[in-house]
């Protein structure tokens, strides 16, 4: 199967001799929901910039749905929709005009451009605001406007660089639903984000980039399987004894009604409930102390540093 995106030995050295990418390889299958994670300055935005022609590569090869960007970049660009990190539209233009103009740059006839603009502005809940200058829109609306703009030529590969930055929780959830929907309809999505919860909730595959190198590239399930320990916080109905202890588990009494339990890979959480049940303590709720992926991310990035 032709990959949606294939990157081979991609390098980038900026004019100031900073080596942003050190020969990375990446393959994203069609229909995938792919997360590209990494700390600030790791090389995520440089990679995306090269894919969509805003940054010139120093070496390497990129193909988008089998089209080599060195051989036919315009054809490759037709497959790509990009939602950048920064707002990059004319703030004085109306939302509808911004989306219609973008369609024009891809050669869509004015009639089709308007039809598509209406479709995506409606789907992203911006149709009522179509005649408002972009500068008057809220941060979340501006973000959704960029998504509508990126989809107007109906690309097969959508790349979102930090789409949730500055977006409130409710808006973020509705954006996730939208992205899941278009992914289910066949659009391949590559996402960079600092919200690891977002990557875990949406993506099936993940690559972690650090210091210009890919330090992990696997499925989300496989990555989470590699976690060797997790810390759970248990909220207890009854007051915990001062010397609360569960055999074979590391525990920490946080306060009278809260207990932290570290569960190693292979240990069974049922044993914790059984021990607490025997002690006459009922559990009202339970949660992870930290996002599981976050712990993995920190381990990988720190390990590579």
């Amino acid at each position, binding site marked *: 199967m032709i990959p949606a995106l294939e990157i081979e030995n991609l390098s980038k050295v900026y004019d100031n001799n900073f080596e942003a990418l050190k020969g990375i390889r990446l393959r994203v299958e069609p229909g995938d929901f792919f997360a590209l994670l990494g700390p600030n300055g790791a090389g995520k935005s440089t990679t995306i910039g090269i894919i969509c022609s805003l940054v010139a590569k120093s070496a390497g090869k990129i193909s988008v749905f089998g089209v080599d960007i060195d051989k036919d970049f315009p054809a490759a660009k037709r497959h790509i929709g990009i939602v950048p990190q920064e707002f990059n539209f*004319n703030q004085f233009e109306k939302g509808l*005009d911004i989306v219609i103009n973008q369609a024009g740059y891809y050669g869509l006839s004015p009639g089709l451009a308007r039809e598509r603009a209406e479709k995506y502005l409606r789907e992203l809940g911006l149709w009522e605001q179509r005649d408002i200058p972009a500068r008057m829109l809220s941060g979340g609306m501006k973000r959704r406007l960029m998504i509508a703009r990126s989809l107007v030529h109906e690309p097969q590969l959508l790349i979102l660089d930090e789409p949730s930055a500055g977006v409130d929780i409710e808006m973020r959830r509705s954006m996730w639903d939208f992205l899941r929907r278009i992914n289910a309809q066949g659009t391949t999505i590559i996402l960079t984000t600092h919200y690891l919860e977002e990557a875990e909730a949406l993506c099936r595959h993940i690559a972690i980039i650090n210091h210009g190198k890919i330090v992990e590239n696997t499925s989300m399930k496989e990555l989470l399987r590699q976690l060797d320990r997790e810390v759970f916080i248990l909220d207890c109905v009854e007051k915990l004894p001062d010397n609360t202890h569960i055999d074979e588990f590391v525990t920490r009494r946080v306060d009278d009604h809260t207990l932290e339990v570290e569960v190693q890979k292979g240990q069974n959480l049922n044993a914790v409930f059984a021990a607490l049940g025997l002690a006459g303590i009922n559990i009202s709720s339970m949660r992870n102390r930290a996002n599981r992926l976050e712990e993995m991310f920190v381990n990988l990035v720190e390990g590579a540093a």
Partner: protein
Amino acid sequence: MNLREQYVAFMTIFRKEIKRYLRIWTQTLLPSAITMSLYFVIFGTLIGSRIGEMGGFSYMEFVVPGLIMMAIVTNSYSNVVSSFFGSKFSGSVEELLVSPVSNFVILMGYVVGGVSRGLLVAVVVTLVSLFFTDLSIHSYLIVVIVVLMTSTLFALAGFINAVYANSFDDISIIPTFVLTPLIYLGGVFYSMDMLPEFWANVSKLNPLVYVVNAFRYGVLGVSDVSLPVAFGMIVIFTTLAFAYSMHLLNSGKRLRQ
């Protein structure tokens, strides 16, 4: 992209440019009409009446072609420099750069947008001039060709300025310190015959001398430089500006990292 799609992309950029300068017409169209009215009153009527004839015409008749050309030059230049730099500044130029539209179409979209503003202002200023003098055209063909070539040349120059500009100061430095002196020294207000030989020769390096005189020939039928030489120089300057603009776009200098 096929030819039809490239045409759609071109028309998109062109329409966007027209909408932009019409939306802010008090900043783009009105100032030229007011400034040129003042020039007509002060240089044409008040001072001109004391100067007498120049090149065989009343001073008012002599300066009108130069002043119309001055409006075309400044407007076609400033439209592209401010619009393209504005899109660089806001980041919206990336909308074009990530799309499959060719660099040639991008350049033409902005340049023809600038040319259209130059033409529109030329019409406005010409209409204003009719309040001060009877304008009879010697050759409509030459007038149209010179106007189109000149506005194209200075729209291209505005594009180059915009690519190099890093701040809003940078887009006013060239018009203030280069373009305006070239216009004033380009024979708008005087005949080249009045200059000492040395300065007349130096003036031949000024592209404004050729556009002002070619246009004056189209309107009045007189010129300080030969028409073929004027056309030749305009073509050379335009070709160089076009080639350099395309080089900037193709190399991605100051547009892509």
